């Protein structure tokens, strides 16, 4: 029996718990088997058909599937009208730059372009034995339905999924795979199916991120994306503040820029889709979603939201303190109400609803995290204040009771989950970047496991929402540029949390898989008794390039756990900022590296057997003498040289202290650097300037 703080998101797509991946020593499904299940075995392989393949979605997804299915030799039929403007050829360049010309050519070699008139499928199609149709034709219900009928009558057993932006599955009569922009690279799909299908599991096995959502008019992403847009438009209507400026404020306070996003996606299409989504939503839920006149105008005209280049704005509009209250009420009030509706309707797992906002709609924190952090009372007050400004919105679709259970783990553990079998626990990170929320949730997960009497733990990504772990969320550093105490608190608190992994468990195992584990996340993982990595994962400390000084003990902890003969490697890693492959890190940064499932098995072995399986690399607690000179790759870049020096100084100072004092020493160094001119001139400073200085 596996007990968990909350349901793992992996379970929502039928792939079980993360714990069982480790206890069974294998992934729930693998790509080769799933390909066989969906397209038939080698020798009798069928094809994938993408209809509307010249469109924005069709062409993007053609590239994505093409690259991921290349090794399985699945023919991909690109179906469209004969006269449709070619959307595929322009994709080739991007494909070649991502995968190299040779791979790009091989990917394209599997693409078969077929044209038809919309009524009679090309006879050639039969010979290609279509198994799966991904429909990406225009958002017109009857046209889509007729299209499905055409395929069903010709190919009775075919699996069909629609990329529709908002028609429910029950209207379309097929399952839904709603993709997120940009379509070539975004791995996220909102999935509507009665049961998780073999194709959905194939998407997962191919490294994509299917997210189960419920069958409603418009799915989670579009409620958030279009909902934010209409909230911004209403604010514009009330204040006349121009779209571009509202975008800057939304970006400052919440992360996205909805108007820019429409222009970038292509205003003509995006305006229509947003209007369409809001129109459907308002038909069902009332004025909360009603498109404004400006949206109708932009839908009908297809015009951009940002001014033309020759009309760059001239008059500044700033929002003062009172104004920013208003702004928050207009935007957050409406978003919170929309979120309450989605929770009420159980549209998805909470973590998924929250992550869709972050991963697909550029929210710095998902709306659930925002509500939770604000608290139920304050969140409700914001919605009520919004209703004073927009009374019609109050008539429908407000579910304050959705906020009643903020104490439940569904709310409290949006990013971090814990599971155990009574013996070994698994802590999963569902956010690629570490921030205060993750920190707090990780602490709660540790508390929970301890309360459950679990002394052995594996720390890992969640095998679903995270496909890599990129390090600290640099947004959290913005206030630290001006306030030393904030930088210090971040470094000190996060390090303290990380230390719990070492001190509060009998055995802790960090498991690294996915594309990369960098910066703060790698630092976090360094605190575990054992570190197991996949051979192919990239491990690195890119802080020097930002620059910041690592503040979760990377500057001394790994030195204390390896012999002086390995220090040169650590210093190279920290000062050059280049990643190394997992397989090259054993003994100085990690304890074990292997391919895929072998690594998973070892993580389990170490977690359950501890030192019986492998001795722990102990922490050398007293001070270390580190020679101050190590050769590093030469650079002319003064900023890099200065950052290297700051990091080297931190290494010397924190290694020179004992393990206990080192916590404070490195926090001090990290915080101090954050207030330096160099940091301000660098990535963090520039991002802060761009985002916060509106």
């Amino acid at each position, binding site marked *: 029996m596996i007990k968990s703080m909350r349901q793992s998101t992996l379970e929502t797509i039928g792939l079980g718990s993360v714990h069982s991946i480790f206890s069974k020593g294998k992934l729930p499904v693998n790509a080769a088997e799933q390909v066989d299940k969906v397209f038939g075995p080698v020798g009798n392989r069928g094809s994938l058909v993408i209809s509307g393949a010249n469109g924005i979605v069709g062409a993007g997804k053609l590239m994505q599937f093409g690259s991921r299915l290349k090794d399985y030799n699945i023919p991909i039929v690109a179906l469209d009208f004969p006269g449709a403007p070619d959307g595929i050829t322009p994709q080739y360049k991007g494909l070649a730059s991502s995968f190299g010309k040779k791979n790009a050519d091989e990917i394209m070699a599997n693409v078969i372009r077929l044209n038809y008139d919309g009524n009679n499928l090309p006879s050639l199609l039969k010979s290609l034995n279509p198994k799966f149709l991904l429909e990406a034709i225009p958002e017109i219900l009857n046209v889509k339905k007729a299209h499905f009928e055409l395929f069903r009558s010709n190919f009775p057993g075919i699996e069909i999924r629609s990329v529709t932006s908002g028609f429910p599955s029950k209207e379309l009569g097929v399952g839904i795979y709603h993709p997120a922009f940009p379509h070539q690279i975004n791995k996220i799909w909102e999935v509507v199916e009665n049961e998780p299908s073999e194709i959905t599991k194939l998407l997962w096995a191919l490294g994509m991120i299917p997210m189960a959502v419920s069958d409603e008019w418009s799915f989670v992403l579009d409620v958030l994306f279009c909902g934010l847009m209409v909230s911004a438009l209403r604010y514009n209507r009330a204040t006349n503040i121009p779209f571009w400026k509202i975008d800057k404020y939304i970006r400052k306070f919440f992360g996205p820029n909805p108007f820019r996003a429409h222009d970038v996606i292509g205003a003509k299409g995006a305006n229509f889709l947003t209007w369409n989504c809001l129109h459907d939503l308002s038909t069902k839920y009332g004025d909360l979603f009603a498109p404004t006149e400006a949206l109708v105008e932009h839908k009908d005209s297809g015009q951009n939201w940002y001014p033309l280049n020759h009309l760059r704005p001239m*008059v500044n509009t700033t929002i003062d303190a009172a104004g920013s209250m208003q702004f928050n009420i207009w935007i957050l009030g409406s978003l919170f109400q929309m979120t309450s509706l989605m929770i009420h309707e159980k549209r998805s797992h909470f973590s998924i609803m929250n992550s869709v906002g972050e991963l697909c709609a550029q929210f710095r924190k998902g709306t659930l995290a925002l509500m939770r952090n604000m608290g139920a009372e304050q969140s409700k007050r914001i919605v009520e204040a919004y209703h004073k400004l927009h009374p019609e919105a109050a008539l429908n679709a407000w579910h304050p009771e959705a906020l009643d259970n903020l104490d439940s783990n569904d709310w409290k553990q949006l990013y971090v989950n814990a599971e155990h079998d009574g013996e070994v626990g698994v802590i999963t990170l569902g956010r690629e970047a570490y921030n205060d929320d993750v920190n707090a949730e990780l602490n709660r997960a540790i508390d929970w496991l301890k309360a459950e009497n679990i002394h052995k733990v594996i720390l890992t990504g969640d095998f679903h929402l995270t496909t890599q772990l990129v390090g600290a969320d640099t947004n959290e550093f913005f206030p630290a540029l001006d306030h030393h105490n904030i930088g210090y608190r971040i470094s000190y608190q996060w390090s303290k949390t990380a230390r719990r992994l070492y001190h509060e468990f009998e055995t802790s195992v960090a498991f690294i898989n996915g594309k990369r584990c960098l910066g703060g996340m790698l630092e976090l993982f360094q605190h575990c008794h054992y570190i197991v990595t996949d051979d192919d994962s990239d491990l690195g400390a890119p802080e020097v390039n930002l620059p910041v000084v690592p503040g979760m003990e990377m500057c001394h902890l790994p030195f204390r756990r390896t012999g002086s003969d390995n220090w040169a490697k650590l210093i190279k890693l920290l000062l050059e900022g280049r990643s190394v492959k997992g397989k090259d890190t054993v003994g100085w940064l990690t304890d074990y590296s292997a391919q895929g499932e072998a690594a998973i098995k070892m993580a389990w072995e170490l977690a359950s057997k501890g030192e019986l399986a492998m001795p722990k690399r102990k922490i050398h607690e007293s001070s270390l003498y580190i020679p101050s000179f190590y050769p590093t790759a030469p650079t002319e870049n003064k900023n890099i040289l200065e950052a290297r020096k700051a990091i080297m100084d931190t290494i010397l100072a924190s290694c020179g202290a004992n393990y206990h004092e080192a916590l404070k020493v490195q926090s001090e160094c990290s915080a101090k650097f954050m207030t330096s001119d160099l940091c301000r001139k660098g990535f963090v400073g520039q991002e802060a300037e761009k985002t916060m200085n509106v």
Partner: protein
Amino acid sequence: MNVESIFPKAHIPYGTWGASYFPAWQSSPLAEVNIGQFAGEAMAYIMGKRKVPMNSLDYLVSGSTIPWHWKFWGSPFLASCAGQRVPGYHLEQACATGLKAIFAAAGAVQGGLANVSGVLTFDRTSDSPVGVFPERRSYERTVALSDVWDNFGFDPATGGAMIATAGNAARKHKIDRKEVDELTFLRYKQYFQALDSGFLAKVLVPLEVLNLQGKVMGKIDSDAGVRSISLEALHSQRELDTCVTSGTQTHASDGMATMLVTTKEKARELSSQPDIDIQIIGLVEARALPSLMAEAPAMAVKKLLQQTGLTMNDIAVVKDHNPFAVNDAIFAKELNYDWHNMNKTGCPLVWGHPQGPTLTRLSIEALQETVDLGGGYALVFGCAAGDVGIAGIFKVSEGGKA
């Protein structure tokens, strides 16, 4: 005395107005902007401050006098810059523009052309354009004309310069230089009192101008260039024409002004003080004999009083657009009115002369002052190129103290 409005359906919602400050020629970032685009964006900003959503407008009457880039596109373009795609039209009649635009908007509401018409006037004298006109019959064959300065210097109908129209009128009306200096001195005092009391801040809105990169390039937050002046200094100035010195005439400046005209119901909805009712009573124009512009305003006022049956005793607030101080003196003499009682919050003689928006700003100040007094009639008048005088009367409901 109750006088019927010539536009009984048109009302001005109290407070839904504003103007930029009017920085002097070449003294602010306004010298560097496309003034039409600036005015449109500023209108949206000001209306936002006044809590008027731009989408309540369905028409825009605009006015300016100095050619600007893209002027061809007129009101529709300006409305787009203000974020509201409505039709409308642009009008131009030298310094009469700012008052005519208000009446034109009232006419649009009265005639059913508009429900809520914006009024937007503006001009940039700085960096004013030079037009190149093929003129076959002129000996140069092609004439280059610096719009502001060359026109000031030469009225093609009379062959005279603008300044001469003031000197001629001063001589005709036997105006005394000393009185004109004293009058000017008072006008400055009135302006600074209005500034210090916070009155101007009620109607003028500080604006920040952005550069191409979207960074703040400067602020338009004062009538830059206005400096207090002593009576001695005024006396000591060289006379350029009779009673005209550099101190007793205005200076070129840049700026914009905006307001709304709408129906009674809509005015109540849009105004922060719905009980204050503002109506437009009447408007007349008059034309003096050649090169006597400075007496034209008095002629227009006389005609308007006659038409409405009002007397100067009925008027609560009097505002004169006075590019020459002589204008006020002639008006006072002709109407037997004490010039101390007028232009109490400042006037174009002091804050400058951007042409298009001048009389709109003056009207806004007049209305605000009348509201502050608890209501009554406001008389706004002035001169305009071509020896024209224009005068209008507004009525603010009694008791509507803001």
